[in-house]
């Protein structure tokens, strides 16, 4: 469905992504794991096209020059020069790191903004689904976004992304700063979204352990390069992954 080949991103002279190739099939959850500065967020920005926007802003302010190379194919079509708004219309929806909800709008307003491009019946249906998935949000509809707790904000961010009718959902560090209970709730919700809505999901995370149970395929990034990839079982069986990402020492 989505396939990126040989992605290279430079922030001025710093190499952020080095020849990264990833792919994600229909109705599949793909995990991308890596430490800070591995290039996870840059990869997400590149897939969603936000990087083109950053590139333009930096160029206008005379700041860093961002260079991108490689190709991104989505449903067989080359999209690496497509603006983020057009990619979103095609169904590539990013749920950004640190949530970035509209802090001064209420929960229901946030969700309605997300559903701006959807048709009215679609939006209504998705809204009902979001409330079914996250019942907490239903009770907080009138609450201003900025006053929600971290977990509620993350639910809202995912809900907002779903309202935009994604065909492929990019979740950038959805578990950042959440309690273990909330983490497991969100992870189960992610699996459910994938099954129910029949969409592909790419999720990035620093800690592989909570996310690993739901992913079908995963990539491991280190210093901007994809060093390892495989299905869940292949990675779980790999001794390097076991020690580096699960803390399991081989006897």
């Amino acid at each position, binding site marked *: 469905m989505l396939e990126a080949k040989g992605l*290279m991103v430079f922030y*001025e*002279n710093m190499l952020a992504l080095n020849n990264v190739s990833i792919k994600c099939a229909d109705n599949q959850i793909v995990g991308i794991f890596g430490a800070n500065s591995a290039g996870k967020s840059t990869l997400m920005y590149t897939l969603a096209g936000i990087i083109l926007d950053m590139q333009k802003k930096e160029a*206008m*302010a*005379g700041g860093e020059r961002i*260079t991108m*190379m*490689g*190709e991104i194919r989505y449903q067989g079509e080359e999209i690496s020069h497509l603006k983020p708004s057009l990619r979103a219309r095609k169904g590539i929806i990013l749920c950004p790191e640190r949530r970035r909800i509209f802090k001064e709008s209420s929960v229901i307003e946030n969700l309605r903004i997300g559903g701006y491009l959807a048709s009215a019946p679609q939006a209504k249906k998705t809204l009902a689904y979001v409330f079914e998935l996250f019942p907490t949000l239903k009770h907080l509809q009138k609450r201003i976004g900025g006053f929600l707790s971290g977990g509620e904000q993350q639910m809202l961010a995912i809900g907002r992304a779903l309202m935009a009718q994604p065909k492929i959902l990019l979740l950038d560090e959805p578990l950042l700063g959440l309690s273990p209970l909330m983490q497991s709730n969100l992870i189960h919700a992610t699996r459910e979204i994938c099954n129910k809505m029949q969409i592909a999901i790419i999720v990035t995370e620093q800690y592989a352990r909570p996310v690993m149970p739901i992913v079908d395929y995963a990539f491991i990034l280190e210093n901007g390069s994809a060093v390892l990839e495989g299905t869940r079982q292949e990675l779980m069986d790999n001794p390097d992954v076991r020690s580096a990402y699960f803390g399991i020492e081989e006897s």
Partner: protein
Amino acid sequence: MAITTQRRKERIDRGINVRTEGIYALMSIKELSYLAAPRLVLIVGLLILPLLLPDMYWKRVITITCIYAFLALSFDFLAHFVGLVSLGGAFFVGIGGYLAAIANTYWGFPPWLTIPFAALVGGAVCTLLLFPCLPLRGVYFAIVSLMYPLFSARVIEALDIFGGTDGIMGIDGFSNHFVEEYAPLGLLLIALFAIRRLVTTDFGLVLRGVKDNDQAIRASGMNVTFYKSVAVYIASTMGCLSGAILVHIYMWSGISLFALDFSILPIAATVIGGSGTLIGPVLGCFILVPISELLRDFGTLRIVFYALILVGFIIFRSEGLMVWGQRKYHQFERWTQI
């Protein structure tokens, strides 16, 4: 796309920038001149400018340009290093101008005394009046600083104080043309280099911190309002200084000192020169003010040319001249294979 033929342009710092940060190890005349040349070009260029222009009219234009340059410098300092967008250039000019006029005509101070008096006291008056909106974040400072000059002009008109609409006449001029030409230029250069130095000191770091994240500054145990008011005092002192000089050049002080031009033109100059460079806005004034004089024959049509220049800059070189120039001077570019 084939990967083998791809290349990108990279920016490399010139050698002397790389070797040390801040403290330069100077090895040769070439390196010494690399550092000193831009500063010398500016200083010498500004100082010989009045000599190159034989015409009294153009010498006067240069002096007026200096007045605007002070305001642009103060705008850039507040906007880029403290995060306060000031639309009150006219307010600073007006307060400084009227104070100098009053000190000169009512109390008989000579110009060399009225100018520092108006700058220091005027800065205090402006800071005091702007103080109520300093603890607030957001648009309040901009709005209040825009309102004060309109308000002051109407008060002077309505109450008929300080000469009312006629203004205060009979103010002493400068003793000779040499002083009139070089006092503003010299003071401008001093102010420029002083502010450049100031923003790199610890105090300047705190100010930039206030702009980025005032909550973090508060959490570090510093009083944000205090730092903001000191910055406003510095900026308004420069504005009042320019106002006082202007009054002694025109030998007249009136409510046109509160005209909107003094607020708007420095902002336009900052856009053209490149905000955050300090020298950029000064350079912007030296471009905009003379152009505005050249276009005087076109009457009100000059506003159109003016607007076109501005829009052109925003579209094609929105970073500003000096940001672009400094990058070209300090870095070079070359193509690299990937």
